[in-house]
């Protein structure tokens, strides 16, 4: 059994190293094919493990070797395959296999083809470590590993200034969150004495709530960074500078969900601190709405999808925060499928449009790109949560959870967001695939993607459609580990009203979007329309001015402060002090060397002067000694 585990874990690494061998050589297909096959192997292994876990209910726990051991600290490279991790493994390996195959086509013309696969497989490996690790340190390895790969991949086209900038932004923002996570790990270690999940969680109930709350908060800060929750969300949209398969794999399906995974994984902790959970849920709901609102007006196809991802992550956190861990995980899984699909579709469009991203410049592509059109539509439907696609089952469940747990505000927000989601998804679909062929204005000749790319996408398509069917079996499996709370609205009537009401609401939103954006008179906005000048539009298109704020008041301030530290403090104060002290001596020497005038008479005078000075001192002292009694009387008379 361990064999499968190791296969699943290490075949991506092998693939990565294989591709890396060709890193400096010109593009070879084999550098793409071999990692893809290896990922397929990894997927199969994961599948076997899934079957095993599902079938037997056993969890697999191996300890490969010691990593760090000092004092009381003991951290092994330990891996666990249980219901939660195996879910993630399946999601990760499946999506990444698809994306790999897809990328063989997508990156076809890129010079960095070999390098790309090396990075991508390395990412998968890191992600596998993240989800399979049996302790927090191992999680952190994967956590940072995916961060590194994300940096490499976002900045893959490093010659673009924006790409390398976005890569750095992503890395640094993640680092900020990682610090929180690190502190969380320290807290866990010093309070429980271990970093193994099982042992640590076993001790936790005996700890004070304060400490647990801090642990929960710091771990969640970590999750916030990786999952791009407010206020650390700006990097995700910028990360769209990376190649589209990267966006699909990393910034939609897997890495960004790591935060959710963390919260789910740490459910025994969060169970103990419901107040933090509520905070997470509230933040999730807020982000869901917040991100959706920005997606409404954005004119960058990939960014819209990225905001949508953000919004969906909000959903997941809302579920997880309310204690519905399995629901969160389920939505995570479903979301991975349809969102990856959506991204890959968008990749096809980009390819066709020669990297044009503004949907206003497209339109009517459904004629040339039928397959892509189909897939993206289905993915959008799933995203919108229309029955019977995957999104319906998972997303509706979250609404139910919020409702059942009596968090009506969250419920309302999420419900409203569902409408927005439907609107912006279909705004995109409508703008890209329907209406006038606006692309012709720009002299582009779009074409459908390679067949095998579409075929590669098909598993995702399938899963986006049918994933909802696995809800119950999944529930049974995963609740071996997670709290098995079933969320049932008390009365059937309410349930049906809610469900159908939601569906109608969403459907209306879709229709509205279609109506609005399939019109013939849609033109590429040029900033003159009334809407574009409205405050709300400006606020949304500028992402609530948050990036601006960060740039102006944090990045710039940091740079200026750094300059000040260097030029003013380091050079003018610290170093100048040191040199100043040295100079005092030197200048004393320069100034007083005139004493050595070389004139004998002066020398004699110095000698006499020295003697006279000494004599005066001697007289003073001698007099003081002789009249010490009198001096004392005198001084005491003065009251000294």
């Amino acid at each position, binding site marked *: 059994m361990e064999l499968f585990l190791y296969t699943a874990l290490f075949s991506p690494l092998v693939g990565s190293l294989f591709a890396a061998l060709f890193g400096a050589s010109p593009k070879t297909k084999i550098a793409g094919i071999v990692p893809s096959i290896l990922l397929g192997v990894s997927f199969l292994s994961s599948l076997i493990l899934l079957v095993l876990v599902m079938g037997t209910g056993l969890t697999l726990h191996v300890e490969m070797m010691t990593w760090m051991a000092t004092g009381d600290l003991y951290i092994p490279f330990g891996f666990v395959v249980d219901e939660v991790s195996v879910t993630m493994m399946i999601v990760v390996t499946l999506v990444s296999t698809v994306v790999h195959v897809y990328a063989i086509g997508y990156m076809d013309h890129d010079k960095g083809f070999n390098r790309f696969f090396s990075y991508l497989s390395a990412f998968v490996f890191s992600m596998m470590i993240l989800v399979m690790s049996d302790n927090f340190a191992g999680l952190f390895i994967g956590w940072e590993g995916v961060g590194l790969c994300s940096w490499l991949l976002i900045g893959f086209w490093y010659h673009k200034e924006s790409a390398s900038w976005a890569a750095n932004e992503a890395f640094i923002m993640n680092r900020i969150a990682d610090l929180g996570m690190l502190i969380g790990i320290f807290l866990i270690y010093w309070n429980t004495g271990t970093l193994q999940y099982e042992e640590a969680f076993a001790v936790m109930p005996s700890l004070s709530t304060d400490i647990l709350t801090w642990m929960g908060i710091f771990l969640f800060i970590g999750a916030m960074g990786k999952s791009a929750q407010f206020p650390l969300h700006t990097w995700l949209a910028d990360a769209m500078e990376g190649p589209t398969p990267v966006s699909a794999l990393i910034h939609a399906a897997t890495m960004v969900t790591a935060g959710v995974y963390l919260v789910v994984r740490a459910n025994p902790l969060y169970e103990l601190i419901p107040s933090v959970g509520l905070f997470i849920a509230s933040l999730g709901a807020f982000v869901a709405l917040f991100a959706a609102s920005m997606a409404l007006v954005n004119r960058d196809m990939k960014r819209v999808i990225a905001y949508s991802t953000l919004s969906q992550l909000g959903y997941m956190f809302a579920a997880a925060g309310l204690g519905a861990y399995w629901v969160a995980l389920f939505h995570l899984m479903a979301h991975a499928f349809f969102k990856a699909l959506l991204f890959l579709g968008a990749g096809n469009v980009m390819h066709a449009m020669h990297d044009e991203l503004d949907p206003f410049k497209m339109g009517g592509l459904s004629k040339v790109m039928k397959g892509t059109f189909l897939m993206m539509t289905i993915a959008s439907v799933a995203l919108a949560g229309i029955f019977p696609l995957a999104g319906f089952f998972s997303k509706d469940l979250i609404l139910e959870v919020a409702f059942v747990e009596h968090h009506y505000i969250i419920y309302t927000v999420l419900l409203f967001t569902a409408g927005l989601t439907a609107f912006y998804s279909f705004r995109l679909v409508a703008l890209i695939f329907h209406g006038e062929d606006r692309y012709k204005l720009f002299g582009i000749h779009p074409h459908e993607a390679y067949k095998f790319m579409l075929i590669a996408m098909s598993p995702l398509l399938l899963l986006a459609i049918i994933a909802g069917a696995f809800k119950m079996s999944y529930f049974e499996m995963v609740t071996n580990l997670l709290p098995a709370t079933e969320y049932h609205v008390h009365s059937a009537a309410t349930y049906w009203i809610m469900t159908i009401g939601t569906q109608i609401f969403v459907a209306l939103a879709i229709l509205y979007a279609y109506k609005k954006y399939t019109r013939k008179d849609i033109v590429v906005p040029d900033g003159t329309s009334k809407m574009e000048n409205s405050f709300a539009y400006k606020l949304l298109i500028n992402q609530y001015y948050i990036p601006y704020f960060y740039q102006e008041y944090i990045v710039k301030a940091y740079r200026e402060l750094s300059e000040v530290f260097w030029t003013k403090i380091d050079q003018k104060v610290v170093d100048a002090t040191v040199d100043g002290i040295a100079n005092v001596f030197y200048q004393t020497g320069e100034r007083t*060397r005139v004493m*050595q*005038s*070389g*004139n*004998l*008479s002066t020398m*004699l*005078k110095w000698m*006499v002067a020295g003697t006279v000075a000494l004599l005066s001192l001697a007289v003073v002292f001698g007099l003081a000694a002789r009249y010490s009694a009198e001096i004392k009387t005198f001084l005491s008379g003065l009251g000294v």
Partner: protein
Amino acid sequence: MEIGLNHYLVLSTILFAIGLLGVIRRKNLLMLFFATEILLNSVNISFAAISHYYGDLTGQMFAFFVIAIAASEVAVGLGLLIVWHKKHNNIDLDSMSTMRG
């Protein structure tokens, strides 16, 4: 008006001070040497006086050796002056300040 030891000591120190005055104001080396002679001689008076008042001969011994020393110094000092004078034709100490700093 008994002349005590102190009288001699005061006299001696006055002479010593005169010697010091000479040492610091003389620029002509020869005359500077005169001043150093005065320094040594002034002390001799004290030695002799102390010796007298204590009835102890050590002071006179000291004075005797001081005289010897003074005499030797004259010899060496004059020797130095002669060499200097031969080369520079002056014995002004302001002329000898090539080394400084």
